[in-house]
């Protein structure tokens, strides 16, 4: 009887110890997870920013994407504050939100870059065509204008009568 009670006591002791150790391990891993989530969020944010810059360089309007990225930055900032306050779950959650936004911005920025590049090419082609047409029109109008002017000028010259002026004796 006593032996059974002792075995139950040992079992409960082991159970409580195991639970405590598990709890500690969970708390530690949550802090690590939160730190890791913040690092990943910052990495995603940096990549998204580079994608936004490429989209902007291609001529795209990135105002909306920058606004979203600033939202992601606020989540990262909040996440760091939670980490300092040992609120690891909240820290991890905010970091993951920031990462989600950043990844979404990176995808949108890639699409924007592709669209802006093709738009830029179309605009360049249109400008080239319009400028060429304008140049041809200038040459044609110039030629036509020159010949009209030349004819007018020559007719006027031909219609002129030479005038002889005699010097008066002094």
């Amino acid at each position, binding site marked *: 009887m006593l032996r059974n009670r002792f075995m139950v006591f040992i079992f409960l002791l082991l159970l409580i110890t195991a639970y405590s150790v598990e709890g500690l391990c969970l708390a530690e891993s949550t802090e690590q997870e939160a730190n890791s989530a913040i690092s990943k969020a910052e990495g995603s944010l*940096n990549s998204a*920013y580079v994608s936004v810059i490429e989209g902007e360089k291609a001529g795209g309007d990135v105002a909306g994407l920058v606004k979203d*990225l600033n939202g992601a930055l606020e989540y990262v900032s909040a996440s760091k504050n939670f980490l300092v306050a040992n609120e690891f779950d909240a820290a991890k959650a905010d970091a993951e939100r920031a990462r989600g936004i950043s990844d979404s911005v990176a995808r949108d920025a890639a699409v924007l870059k592709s669209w802006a590049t093709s738009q830029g090419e179309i605009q*360049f082609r249109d400008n*080239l065509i319009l400028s060429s047409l304008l140049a041809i029109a*200038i040459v044609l109008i*110039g030629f036509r204008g020159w010949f009209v002017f030349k004819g007018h000028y020559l007719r006027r010259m031909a219609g002129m009568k030479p005038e002889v002026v005699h010097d008066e004796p002094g």
Partner: protein
Amino acid sequence: MSLDDWHLTFILICTVLIVAAFIPVVSAFLPRNEEPFFALAVLGENGMAEHYYPDENSTIKVGTEVHWFIYIYNHMGKSQYVSIRVKILNSTIMTPNSTSCTPSEAPTTHEIRRILLENQTWSYPFNWILQNVTKFDNSTTINSLLINGERLQSNIRARNGYNFRLVFELWVYDPSSDDLVFGWKSGQEPSCAWNQIWFNVTSTR
């Protein structure tokens, strides 16, 4: 004017018009000659360069809220990812070096990150309160302060509470190093922006 003179005039006018017609095409290849820069300023409670201290007294009491604004303008030719690092210094800690663009060695107390569009101005409210200040002999130590509601630790001390300063450094994300760096490149020259505001501290409320 002779006919030859008129002929030359016509050719010149046509050439000028043809060159003008190609300006939209050529402009796509023209380099930007503007100098890139950031502007950083710390403004007083009205958003102007005045009224930095409550009651115009530069000796700040514990628990007194100070209202400033951090002003940044991006003229770098593209969107920029920036960070403002706020550091508390006394009169002996080295400030950032504007020539070599080296940041202050003091630890960052508070950091604000933001992505600014080209030509965008951003004004950020910076409200701070000295929360815990201790005085021992002639030395006054700032132990903690609240910046925009966030409690931050510090251990900066100054003799008799004189000549503390808050330094604001502008750090910019550099894609090549994948990190924030103090300052930026303006052509081949390094440029940087930082600001400081001096204040004294009294441990009385």
